[in-house]
């Protein structure tokens, strides 16, 4: 079974981003970039499936500028077998990415595609579901556990009210939630090995996909600032403030 794992290059989760002074977006100059944490969990899950003998090959794919090769190398160092970069400098929105990935998937014939449930930059949470719809496949979003049972996949999903278990026909699409697994760290020898692993580069045109943008960002602003608060000295003082100043209890 071949597993496809799309990965996205994003701002590192520990960086506090600032809005650019011209309000065109956030300032990404000299900011640390990383593989999106949810994509990393997806990569880890695919590698574990291969280690268990369930998967035979793990292919990671990213769409974006040339620099995305860094995150693909990270995924290779974690244990993925090979990488594909769909290279373009155009702005990519979820629908376009889903179309590109669908074209890659048609070529690769993966039986399972594991996405991260959202990327921590745009917080869209769309690409996996869009890909599943375009491919006509079942989806298991927000997965905290997956098991392959014959030609079906059992998935436990984190929901607003608890947990839900579904079975999906394969090929299937999964989007990984935080508690699916805890990703490993890449060892130095594996980082070295990753440099030699194959990386195919292609363009949207090679895949016959026209990249369109449906949604235009008009401006980006900092969020409303909260007024500075105070430190209270005692629990009595806290209760007094909540009753008599804030009037919320």
């Amino acid at each position: 079974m071949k597993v496809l794992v799309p990965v996205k290059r994003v701002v590192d989760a520990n960086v506090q981003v600032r809005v650019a002074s011209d309000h065109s977006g956030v300032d990404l100059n000299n900011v640390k970039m990383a593989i999106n944490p949810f994509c990393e969990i997806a990569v880890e899950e695919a590698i574990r499936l291969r280690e268990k003998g369930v998967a035979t090959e793990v292919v990671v794919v990213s769409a974006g500028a040339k620099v995305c090769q860094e995150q693909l190398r990270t995924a290779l160092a974690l244990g993925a077998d090979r990488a594909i970069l769909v290279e373009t400098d155009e702005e990519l929105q979820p629908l376009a990415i889903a179309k590109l990935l669908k074209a890659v998937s048609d070529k690769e014939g993966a039986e399972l595609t594991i996405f991260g449930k959202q990327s921590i930059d745009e917080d869209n949470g769309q690409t996996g579901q869009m890909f599943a719809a375009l491919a006509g496949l079942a989806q298991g979003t927000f997965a905290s556990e997956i098991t392959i049972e014959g030609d079906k996949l059992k998935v436990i999903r984190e929901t607003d009210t608890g947990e839900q278990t579904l079975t999906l026909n394969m090929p299937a699409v999964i989007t990984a939630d935080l508690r699916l697994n805890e990703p490993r760290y890449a060892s130095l020898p594996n980082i070295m090995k990753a440099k030699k692993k194959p990386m195919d580069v292609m363009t949207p045109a090679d895949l016959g996909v026209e990249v369109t943008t449906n949604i235009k960002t008009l401006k980006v602003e900092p969020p409303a600032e909260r007024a500075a608060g105070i430190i209270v000295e005692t629990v009595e003082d806290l209760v007094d403030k909540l009753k008599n100043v804030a009037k919320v209890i």
Partner: protein
Amino acid sequence: MSVLVLAEHDNNELKSATLNTVTAATEIGGDVTILVAGSGCGAVAEQAAKIAGVAKVLVADNAAYTNMLAENTAALIVELAGDYSAILAPAMTNAKGILPRVAALLDVGQISEITAVVSADTFVRPIYAGNAMATVQSSDSIKVITVRGTGFDAPSAEGGSATVEAISNATDAGVSEFVSEEVAASDRPDLTAARVVISGGRGMQNGENFKLLEAVADKLGAAIGASRAAVDAGYVANDMQVGQTGKIVAPELYIAVGISGAIQHLAGMKDSKVIVAINKDEEAPIFQVADFGLVADLFEAVPAFEALL
């Protein structure tokens, strides 16, 4: 043209976030139609029909929609989409799975988790865990949108008199099957709708100690939340996680106990009206967003706080 709102429900009860979504729909303009997809969901349709400002309720009552499986529900919405200029749903687990499928099948983009409507094609949404607010404009003929409940006031749940129309669609894609569900039972108010929320973090040390928060919650009628660290450590259930990748809450009063205040946690609660932080580390970033901070050991402060309520 009119706007279609997908109802969030459990076949018995309409979830309150649906009401906030109706407000967003009204701001976009046009008649508002609510779609109730489920099975044995007649009571939900009745509740939906009473919401002020709703013109029509469509009920797709069929076994194929019992658990609102994304594949089936998305197919249903696509069958209906031609009549609407916008399709909205509360940004909750069901719609987060369903709406991107709808958008892809209609070959349009989706706008996720809007917090404000600027005009019929322009919306505001948080990006980067709420560290930036983007104003975005859609050029699509049908706008597909998930709505963040905290961004919109709820209309009155009573007084409306929408017509209720049963529809016979019954698409079962046959690719996914519901097995079981574990719903965390609680008599407390819904986390996303509660007036007061008290949340515990890693500082709580274990699940047992959440009893301290429960005692406060009992007195304040509060819902109980948690940080990711507390959920990951198994202190409490996943549906209690507040944050960028958990639930977004904006109660009148949010009390953070033993929570450091990582950006990802702040993303889920910093729009609360009043924020209280109880933490023994005066440097904890949570104090930067707190209206009232108490630097103290939670194991002393929380019981003392409760005793004074």
